[in-house]
């Protein structure tokens, strides 16, 4: 069973995305034998009112809830986010959040974000944070949004030990407190493999050794990215069959609390 924790629906401001409707994404998943995916709105990255994008995603996935798991994008700096969070969780059935602190310009450890993370935690929602949306070298002339520094995420996971975080599109964890066992951070976060290497520096293998096989999850970044690079990593990764199955989907099911 393969569950992708890092997928998207909708449009992105700087580049045309294909496979960005529920039906077309499912067709792509079928062609790659990916069973399920966590999806959030790509449009909300640049929407002022993120809730409009959440509603779009909810409508798209409604006939496909067995395979597409919706996450909400909430901007704690925007009016009414508490109402949006309640709606996304209670009415739209969202299972988690995606946060874009650099795009939406708030501090991960500021009061507003901490309030959001605590509220999400009380609701049992996972908080996912894409470290980046796209490679900075190809950014539009209109925007210059930096990656989320891993140090800022480390401070957040430390400040919210009861929360559960998924770190997406990240790399370089092994050189940060997030990738070390002696950093004193709670084990309340997991990372996806979408940008990690399985060969040469083999960051995936090193994180399996440091964080453990329960905290590395399969993610592709589709449809921003081709899914095959992540599948290829899983294929060539030097790990036991059991650990590969954890990465491919079992860990995600645990994090989503679909199995205990």
């Amino acid at each position, binding site marked *: 069973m393969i569950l992708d924790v890092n997928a998207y629906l909708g449009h992105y401001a700087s580049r045309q*995305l294909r496979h960005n409707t529920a039906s077309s994404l499912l067709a792509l998943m079928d062609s790659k034998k990916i069973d399920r995916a966590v999806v959030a709105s790509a449009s909300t990255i640049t929407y002022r009112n993120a809730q409009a994008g959440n509603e779009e995603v909810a409508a798209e996935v409604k006939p496909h809830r067995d395979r597409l798991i919706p996450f909400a994008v909430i901007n704690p700096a925007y009016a009414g986010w508490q109402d949006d969070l309640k709606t996304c969780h209670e009415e739209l059935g969202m299972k988690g959040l995606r946060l874009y602190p650099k795009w939406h310009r708030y501090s991960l450890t500021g009061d507003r974000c901490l309030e959001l993370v605590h509220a999400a935690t009380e609701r049992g929602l996972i908080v996912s944070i894409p470290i980046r949306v*796209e490679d900075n070298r190809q950014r539009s002339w209109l925007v210059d949004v930096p990656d989320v520094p891993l140090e800022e995420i480390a401070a957040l996971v430390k400040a919210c030990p009861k929360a559960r975080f998924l770190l997406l599109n990240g790399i370089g964890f092994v050189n940060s407190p997030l990738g070390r066992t002696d950093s004193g951070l709670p084990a309340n976060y997991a990372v996806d493999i979408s940008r990690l290497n399985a060969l040469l520096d083999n960051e995936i293998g090193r994180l399996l050794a440091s964080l453990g096989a329960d905290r590395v999850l399969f993610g592709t970044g589709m449809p921003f990215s081709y899914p095959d690079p992540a599948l290829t990593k899983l294929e060539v990764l030097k790990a036991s069959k059991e650990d590969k199955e954890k990465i491919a989907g079992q860990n995600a099911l645990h994090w989503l609390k679909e199995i205990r």
Partner: protein
Amino acid sequence: MHQFPGVQEPHSGGRLSRAEQRQRPHGAGLKQSVSTAVALGTATGGLAADGPDRKTKVIDWHAHLMHHSRSTWEADDRSLIEAADQLGIDQLCCSTLTPRRPATAEGFRECNRWTLEGMDRFRGRVLGYCYVNPGFKKEALEEIKRCIEDRGIIGIKLYNEYTCTDPVVFPVVELAIELGVPILHHAGHLHYFLDAQPHVSDGGHLAELARRYPEAKLICAHICGGGDWEWTIKALRHAPNVSLDTSGSVTDEGVVEMAARVLGVDRLVFGCDMSLTASVGRLRAANLSAPDKEKILGANMAKLMKRGKS
């Protein structure tokens, strides 16, 4: 015109290299070389393999051996070959670069010496580029001649010391034409000024150079590691003697299909630039026919490596 050492006859020693072992037929009805199948994902149920019998090698057109100032260079080089084994890559076209640019003449000579040593250490697996800084005209031209005429180097690697339309680069291009070898040129188009690379070339510069030298065999490096890839592909459209290497760490969906649509598959060459699973996965994913992928994975490069004008 002649075939370079290592292209058709990769290894004549006693024990078979892993690449050669993969080339051995594994049974009747084999439709692709085994390595091509591994790279395409067909060996693991990825893409359908059909069409006529093919013997195309998978060649990574853009790879690097490590500079020897790096303490782990030897292990790193070995890891690269082992990773290539896992992914079904038969040969890697490698350059060694100085840690800092602009390279001095001594610096690029030293790098090329190490590239040649790497070709010996990994005979049949590593093909070499001669890296030079065109600013050292006499030394660069002598080094290119020595490496290509005497040592079996397959092409020239130019980095970012000069924009490729700078006249200082022209003697190197003219020598490449004379020798009939390709130039792999570092390139990228960013919508902001890159302080670290003030003279970086982009697809537009390479297209301009190609118009000046239509007989040159130019390769624009790493479409997936050079900024706005849509811009680069469009900029290269009307420069038929510029090929595009598919390497880089960016895994954006659709890049290979757009490049194939705008430039044609005959102008695409497979490369990794050390981003191995990203680059193999990208080719596996691309919505192209298996024969077209085989062109990108090896056949197009084999043509470029044949000595002679494009």
